[in-house]
């Protein structure tokens, strides 16, 4: 499935191998310049935490102390002077010097489906054309870095690759930390027996394709080779936690989410370009504070440990971490102690990948109802990721109906994030 991305990898590598290499008379630097990049990429990988349902911005990244909209949580100080976040993130508060916040995302969509589509693709849903999710854009534009699938979605679904092709779809991991049954032979088939099977299969397929100049038959061979390479890759160990000390699991919280965060770290260390970690349950129309407190208990140790570990190993420099939701929630607390959908202004959390720690972009008004300054449009977030990864957001790709579509729907990168 990553065949075309892998093919691309080969050509890119070959191209970059010789610095004097030319293609159609252009030097490598000319080629790079023509892709619209004006700088060297800052980040190589992305970890996207997708909080489905619409996470309250006021109860997380954008507290409003002293205002009636503040609700039940107190703000707490962080390692960044003057920056406060909600008390549900005590451990993360100690890592905020690595992180940045955007507090002025001006969304336009108030229904889950449309807003999710918008935040995940940068586009608005339009008739019968599906736009690809951002993870697919990344893996279609950047070469693979290791043996593992380039785009992995943990504990839930990711948006479609659509016209970028099947090879840019996410690989799904249902239960982080557990072995994926499809990445190795079934337990009852020993390694030697499996190897023998593969050998015989190769022989049969060779004979079947013999002398046939049929690309439809030879294309299958590459995909088989890729699969075998993956099944034999030492990088597969990243998926399995049986050798991970309990102490480490506990630091991340030993929850599905914590395991997801830990898996995300292990995957980017093994060259996975884009990891999406899904979490639901943020649609808190009632009992918002109870729900957010328990979200905090789960998310705080996971996110804090991830940032800390990535920073310790130096991976944070080239890994962009983003936590975002389809919208925020109403400043007003409703009669069921809940908050309702609120797209007008909401926040996101970012860290790494060249992002200047401690930055806060924009702000909302005193009640967290509208952007006060530096409003950021949804596609600006995608353009920002493109900027970090060295992808040209204006690049056009063709849909099946030969309609050119930009990778990002007219966003502008928030360059202040990068210092």
């Amino acid at each position: 499935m990553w065949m075309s991305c892998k093919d691309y990898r080969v050509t890119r590598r070959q191209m970059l191998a010789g610095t004097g290499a030319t293609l159609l008379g252009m030097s490598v630097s000319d080629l790079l310049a023509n892709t619209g990049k004006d700088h060297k990429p800052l980040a190589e990988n992305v970890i996207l935490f997708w909080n489905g349902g619409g996470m309250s911005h006021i109860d997380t990244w954008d507290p409003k102390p002293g205002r009636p909209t503040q609700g039940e949580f107190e703000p707490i100080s962080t390692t960044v002077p003057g920056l406060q976040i909600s008390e549900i993130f005590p451990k993360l508060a100690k890592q905020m010097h690595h992180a940045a916040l955007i507090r002025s995302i001006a969304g336009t969509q108030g229904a889950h489906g449309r807003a999710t589509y918008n935040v995940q693709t940068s586009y608005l849903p339009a008739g019968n054309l599906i736009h690809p999710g951002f993870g697919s854009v990344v893996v279609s534009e950047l070469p693979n870095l290791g043996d593992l699938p380039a785009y992995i979605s943990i504990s839930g679904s990711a948006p479609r690759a659509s016209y970028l092709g099947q090879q840019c779809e996410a690989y799904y991991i249902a239960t982080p930390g557990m072995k994926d049954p499809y990445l190795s032979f079934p337990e009852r088939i020993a390694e030697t027996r499996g190897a023998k099977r593969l050998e015989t299969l190769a022989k049969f397929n060779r004979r079947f394709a013999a002398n046939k100049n049929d690309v439809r038959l030879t294309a299958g061979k590459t995909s088989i080779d890729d699969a075998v390479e993956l099944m034999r890759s030492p990088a597969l160990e990243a998926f399995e936690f049986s050798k991970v000390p309990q102490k480490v699991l506990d630091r991340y919280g030993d929850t599905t989410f914590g395991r997801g965060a830990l898996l995300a770290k292990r995957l980017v260390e093994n060259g996975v370009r884009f990891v999406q970690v899904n979490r639901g349950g943020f649609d808190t129309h009632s009992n918002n504070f109870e729900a957010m407190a328990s979200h905090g208990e789960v998310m705080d140790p996971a996110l804090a440990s991830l940032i800390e570990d990535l920073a310790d190993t130096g991976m944070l420099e080239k890994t962009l971490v983003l936590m975002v939701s389809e919208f925020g929630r109403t400043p007003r607390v409703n009669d069921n102690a809940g908050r309702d959908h609120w797209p007008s202004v909401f926040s996101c959390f970012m860290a790494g990948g060249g992002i200047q720690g401690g930055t806060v972009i924009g702000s909302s008004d005193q009640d967290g109802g509208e952007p006060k300054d530096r409003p950021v449009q949804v596609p600006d977030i995608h353009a920002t990721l493109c900027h970090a990864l060295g992808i040209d957001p204006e690049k056009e790709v063709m849909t099946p109906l030969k309609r050119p579509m930009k990778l990002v729907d007219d966003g502008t990168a928030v360059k202040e994030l990068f210092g």
Partner: protein
Amino acid sequence: MRLCLVFVTLIGLCPVFSLSAVAAELDAILGQENKQLGVAAQPVPLTDDLSFLRRASVDFIARIPTNDEIQEYMGWPASQRREKLLNKLMAEDRFTDRWTIFFSDMLRLRSSSPGGSALIAYVHKAIDEGMPYDELSRRLISTNGKANVNPEVGFILGDNADPLAMASVTSQVFLGVRMGCAECHDHPFDVWTRHDFYGLAAYFGKTQRVETRFTRVVYTTEADQTSVLWPPEDEAESKDRAPITPRFPIALDEDSSSSFIVRFEALRRKLADKAVREKAEADADNLIDLVDLAAAKAELRIRGELPDATTSEAKRDIRSIDIQKSLYRTSVLREELAAFVTDPRNRYFSRQIVNRIWKELVGRGFVEPVDDFRQDNLPQHPEVMDYLADEFVAHGFDLRWLIREIAMSDVYGRGHAPDQADSIEREELESKFLATPTRRMISEALYDSIVTAGHLFDVKHPAGVNTKVVQETIRVPKKIDAADAEGGVEKINIADLQETTVSNAMPLSQSADSSGRYSLENAIELDFAALLEQKDDDLVIDRMAVMSAEELEAQRMAMTRPRPGMDYTTKVVSRSYDDNPRFNSSLRMASPAPAGHFLRVFGQPERQQLGDFRDDNASMRQALMMFNGRLTNEAARVGSLEPVHEMLMGKKANLDKAIQFVYLEILTRVPTKVEVAESREIIGRDVLSGMEDLRWVLLNCNEFRFLP
């Protein structure tokens, strides 16, 4: 036709294998067209009988033949085999299932959209009952009504009854024209203008999609005002925009005297006369039934066993009719559009479907991509295409007829380009329909073929040999003190609480449960008949649709009153079960399958956007799923209840016989001597596990998934 065939066969004048007059004519026209094109290459000979059996079985019923079916087929006289086979396959339920998949792809039907599953069931029924294609299309284009109850309405609900989307869909799906390009600008490579597009969209302009509050019932009806205005939003101020007159942008072929139209009209008249006659007879029967029923009711009433309920029954019926009428007004505009689209003089309509079905069977369309008929993308072999399209109309838009005729032709029956052909020769042979292109089975056929080859439609192991023990987290009701329950206060048992804590600390323990771990290979069948049944609560829902918001709110309050005893807690239990593998057919699954499912990995489309066809590319994930998945591995494993077990372990065990048998079962062919010798080597001493390895390889190899 049958007589003619016998005649031709008897006097031996039939050099090629054409079983029907139309198919023979089609082959003749193809030969002439190729001659005119100056094609020098000779057609590749017809494929052998076993290959034909495999190809036709997969194309018609989406699975490879079983050993019994192979024996039956080879037992028929050689001259009748192919025709007998096609007739037999067309009579199977699986034929309907398989072609429902074709139409689900073409029409972009999704179980998950409102009324989507009922619509798939409806299309299934239409194919099963032989509903003419023009009638099916007319219904899909024009019906208003309620999701699931009027299944056809699911078609426009799939695009939210959005007029602009429906204009694109109608032109591209039914006419093979990408008029959607003209939504935002005049078509860049064709004649269609923005004005044409808006004129087409205007037929949908008065249709409204309504979703009732609280009950979430979705239906469509006609409004008095249209929502489609001209000029488009980006070209004029809103005060300058006005309703646009609906206009069908394609000129119909004015000549109604064409032979195929005359024959079509004669056929329809005959059918209409027959229907009128039958109805008259049925009415007479009904009258007798009614009289009988009335007499019986009177009798019962006299005996005091039937209350006099007729008045209230009648009232209820009348009310329901009235409500439905006011709710779902029919769309006069869309009926008009449907008549234009399906008019026998509209050649786009018949060409489109002929081109698609031709491609499905032959592997390559006259026009490619199949939904892009335009002036600078002219068809290969237009005469063959038009001959087939016109005959399809003359035969009353009969889909089975079309599928059968194509499959009867030599074009369908030919072998592949010779091995030594280079890519240019191969392309020449395939593009001129002189050789069959390499085609991979569609994902559903691949799935069902593995199930068939592996004897997995039924259990093949005796009970008890696959016993597994699993740790499971289950939901149990919280214990409630009976006295307190009435007051709505619950007492939770302390022991349960501790269990809950334990289970929360553990990941959901589905690791040992194959159905959970391998859920991407499950196939849960939909009950099509049940989906089309009228539900008892329909009337209730209709009534709700006309209720006021206050009434609905009152009803909602009444229903959400807290009910005691509805709370659950979780518990971890150990459970043992017989994990005897068994698989359903994938043909009737809710579709499209979830992302990552076997069917999707092998190319089942998402059926969302236009022009999103089946992806037949190879991918790494396909290899991983086939190497390591439960389906392939269980299919390969030898069960003691399947025939090959006896050949391996029985008193008269015969390894060569067993090898020949599995080759026949899996690849529908006899192995060569070299292959038998090689298989003996692969199998080795431990014949059961060795045979499993051989079967695993045969199921995984390209020869299995690519059609002969």
